[in-house]
């Protein structure tokens, strides 16, 4: 009997629990919120240890109880080696533990501040005294990170700001001074002077909105002060104005005068090409019909060479074969090998295992740098190599293959040249035993000898993408295509794997990451035994973040979110859903131009899609000319010109590139270069009108359409 009663009670209790669980309001799942620790995200930034998270939880708990001693003690149990690891911050940002700690300390209540100083002032002062010589920067950074709210925190921040400013880290310098202004109300330092310094750093960092804010604050609050900086003494607002004006004058004097001339690019009449380089014909020469069919069905035959122009020379990287062409005559200057050797590759179908978008080229001065791999190497996982050559002869200066710095590295994205360094994304191959997940890295390289200056880890992939590139029927497999941009002393990397990160260009220190929702670029969806029934969708080429005012507009390759980030204030200015296949092309006024299945115009103030035009074969890849007077895209049916305001197709210039898959358009001072998978064609730029004649004597007229720079490149 007893057993029956117990069983009945148990049943009743379980029913009640289930019912209450049902009645409880379901916790709304914020599907847009992303965390560094989410296991389904493709990339994880170096995570802080569990002890750090526990320490932060303890701090929070003791803080709620006003047990300040224990709360602060918990915070200082965080080991220093964990300070550079990453933890979820606010608004989707992933920040270093050191930043998180500083934020927590700065937000302490006055009572807690008093307690804090009681416990930690001595240690901070000791550190501040020791901050000299080679350890100065490190000690100041330590105080700024861990003891900012002590009595010497403001002084340390001020000195650190000076230090950063001298190093050219204007962003960081501005942040140091701004933090004293905003977070240290009892500072003894001159607030006017701090404001001027912060304003100047903000100006150099290009943070215009914050600069205006500081200017008005200086004018309103500190107009009575007199401060001296750079040998000038004046009221803070006036001094800041003077300093900025003198900076502007210096910059204007250093910039070369731009050549004036009509900016229009007119293709309204059929014009002959100045020259055409037919490289595909060279590959196909001597092929019999069966070989030709096989070559054409091979994905390699649709590859558009990566092209760059330096001076009057065009350099192209066609599947690892490098060629230099004189843009004036169209004559080949040199090449690294005969394209005809590609014929052998036509019989191999392993090209489907290779992401050919990695073949890139960069030229500056008397050197060029190419990223590629030997197509004859049938190892699917063979790493891509960076090779530096002389621009005049193609002679190899150095190559990553020969340098030990590059062991276990697979260079995976287009390099950029900025601040005298070469920056390039790379993939690390797990640990020393080649186990574990590969990491996303960024390398800074000395351009002339290939020496790696620094190597920073952005994060670890949660799936090994290298094993997911298998395809059927010669379909080209794509993978995340990381892109870099340089902006005032910082390198931004869009990993296209759900993280945009900022690094210090000098030291490689990782400042923060922003996590956004994305699908993995290359999942297992291509295998029919793994739910392949969702049609494989060709992703658009990965775009680099686009600068729009002070914000960076970002769109991940497999993300359905478009967002603008204010990287200095670490805020998301706006975000909106877009088609997964969208990519960024450029901005014209307040319009954002996007590619993808269609070319679209998005009105930025309202975030509404204004127009969409489907061009032949879409706009998933290729460099599109985005200019205020028009949009031009090379398609398989010619060069399509669109009105940037309405998206109306103005005309289709058939040109000499028919029979190709389309490709890139590059505008130089005198030429419009169309680069397709078969040819490189140079059309002369000239003003509109049928009277615009061609020929040697019309060179002057054609040159009048110079705008002075390569424009509108994606």
């Amino acid at each position, binding site marked *: 009997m007893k057993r029956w009663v117990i069983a009945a009670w148990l049943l009743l209790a379980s029913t009640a629990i289930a019912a209450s669980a049902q009645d409880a309001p379901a916790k709304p799942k914020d599907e847009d919120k992303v965390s560094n620790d989410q296991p389904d995200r493709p990339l994880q930034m170096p995570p802080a240890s569990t002890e750090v998270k526990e320490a932060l939880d303890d701090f929070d708990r003791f803080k709620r109880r006003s047990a300040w001693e224990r709360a602060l003690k918990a915070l200082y149990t965080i080991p220093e080696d964990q300070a550079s690891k990453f933890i979820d911050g606010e608004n989707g940002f992933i920040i270093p533990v050191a930043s998180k700690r500083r934020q927590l300390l700065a937000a302490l209540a006055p009572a807690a501040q008093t307690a804090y100083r009681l416990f930690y002032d001595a240690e901070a002062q000791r550190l501040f005294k020791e901050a000299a010589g080679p350890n100065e920067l490190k000690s100041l950074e330590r105080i700024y990170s861990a003891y900012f709210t002590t009595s010497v925190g403001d002084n340390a921040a001020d000195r650190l700001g000076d230090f950063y400013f001298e190093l050219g880290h204007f962003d960081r310098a501005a942040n140091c001074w701004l933090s004293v202004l905003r977070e240290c109300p009892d500072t003894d330092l001159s607030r006017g002077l701090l404001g001027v310094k912060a304003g100047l750093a903000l100006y150099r960092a290009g943070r215009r909105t914050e600069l205006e804010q500081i200017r008005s604050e200086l004018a309103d609050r500190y107009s009575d002060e007199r401060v001296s900086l750079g040998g000038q003494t004046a009221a803070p607002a006036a001094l800041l104005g003077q300093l900025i004006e003198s900076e502007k004058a210096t910059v204007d004097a250093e910039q070369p005068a731009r050549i004036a001339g009509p900016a229009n690019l007119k293709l309204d009449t059929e014009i002959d090409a100045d020259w055409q380089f037919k490289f595909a014909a060279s590959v196909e020469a001597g092929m019999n019909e069966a070989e030709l069919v096989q070559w054409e069905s091979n994905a390699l035959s649709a590859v558009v060479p990566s092209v760059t122009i330096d001076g009057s020379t065009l350099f192209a990287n066609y599947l690892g074969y490098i060629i230099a062409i004189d843009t004036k005559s169209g004559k080949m200057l040199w090449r690294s090998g005969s394209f005809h050797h590609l014929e052998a590759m036509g019989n191999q179908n392993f090209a489907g295992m290779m992401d050919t978008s990695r073949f890139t080229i960069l030229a500056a001065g008397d050197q060029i740098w190419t990223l590629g791999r030997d197509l004859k190497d049938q190892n699917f996982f063979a790493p891509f190599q960076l090779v530096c050559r002389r621009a005049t002869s193609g002679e190899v200066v150095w190559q990553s293959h020969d340098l030990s710095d590059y062991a276990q590295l697979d260079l995976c994205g287009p390099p950029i040249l900025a601040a005298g360094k070469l920056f390039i994304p790379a993939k690390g191959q797990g640990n020393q035993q080649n186990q574990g997940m590969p990491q996303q890295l960024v390398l800074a390289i000395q351009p002339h000898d290939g020496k790696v200056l620094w190597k920073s880890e952005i994060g670890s992939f949660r799936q090994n993408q290298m094993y997911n590139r298998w395809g059927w029927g010669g379909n080209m497999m794509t993978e995340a295509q990381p892109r870099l941009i340089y902006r005032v002393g910082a390198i931004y990397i869009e990993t296209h794997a759900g993280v945009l990160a900022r690094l210090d260009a000098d030291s490689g220190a990782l400042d923060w990451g922003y996590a956004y*929702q994305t*699908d993995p670029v290359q999942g297992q969806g291509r295998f*029919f035994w793994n739910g392949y029934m969702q*049609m494989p969708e060709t992703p658009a080429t990965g775009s680099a973040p686009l600068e729009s005012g002070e914000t960076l507009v970002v769109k991940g390759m497999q993300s359905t979110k478009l967002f603008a980030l204010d990287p200095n204030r670490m805020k998301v200015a706006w975000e909106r859903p877009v088609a997964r296949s969208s990519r960024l092309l450029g901005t014209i006024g307040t319009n954002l131009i996007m590619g993808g299945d269609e070319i679209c115009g998005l009105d930025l103030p309202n975030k509404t*899609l204004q127009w969409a035009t489907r061009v032949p074969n879409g706009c998933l890849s290729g460099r599109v000319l985005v200019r205020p007077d028009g949009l031009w895209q090379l398609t398989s*049916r010619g060069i399509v010109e669109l009105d940037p305001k309405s998206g109306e*197709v103005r005309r289709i210039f058939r040109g000499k590139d028919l029979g190709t898959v389309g490709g890139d358009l590059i505008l130089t001072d005198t030429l419009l270069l169309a680069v397709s998978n078969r040819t490189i064609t140079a059309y002369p730029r000239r003003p509109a009108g049928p009277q615009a004649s061609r020929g040697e004597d019309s060179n002057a007229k054609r040159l009048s359409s110079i705008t002075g720079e390569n424009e509108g490149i994606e």
Partner: protein
Amino acid sequence: MKRTLLAGAAALYFFWTSGSAQAQYFGQPMESRPPDNIEGFTVSGKARVSAKPNLVEIDLEVSASSELTADAIVKYRDARKRIHDAFAALKLKNVEVEERGLLVDQKGMMQNPYMWGGQMNTRNKTEVQLTRKLVVKASNIRELSEEAVLQLVAKLLDVAQDAGARVGAQNNFNPYYYNPWQNMNTSLVRFVLDDFDKQLEDAYEKAIADAKTRAQRLARLSKVELGPVVAVREVAIPGERPAMAEDEVPRKRLEAGKFQDIPINVDLMVRFDIRRTPDQK
């Protein structure tokens, strides 16, 4: 004991009656063959006439997708407008763009023949896709020369492609799954004959005449006199397809992928009576 007997009897009766029903069913004549008790001559009459197509059709597809349905609408609206504008700019009176139904779907999804009970969506976000099939029709091509038809078709294809339309039957099928029906009628251009009433009349007349010739031959060899027609069945009806759900194509039409005379085949089954002589009566 009684109950057992009763049950046995019932089972026996049931078995017996069901057996008789089965015999009755199989005793019925199959529809595809003439009845067993046929009288007279049943012969087939066939005829074939042909005519030039009077219409050329090109399938286009306009589709747009986005996570925001409002974006998909803008894209779809613009794409559709540009196609209409492009063909209107041709100013050809015999060319029109016909619209078929609008499909509101999810991008990238398709029927999975290997997976019952639906399939998992492995994507984080769903993209709404709007798709509409457009059919560009150029009529009155019968009077045109082959060269003129070629020029017209080339113009239509060029305009469609320049307007960014997807041309031809869409390959929205699974490349790893073999389905022979998916590969049917995938030609880029369709030549259509839909005004063949007169030719049809001729074909029927010829088919009846053909049947009569055959029946007369049989009667002569059988040494009987051929009587009147007592029944006619259409075996093959030219240009008619069975009705299908969401059918968008007219049911009576003949199509060819090649520009050539399109055959109109009529196949009849005709039964003639045997005229009995007074002796036979």
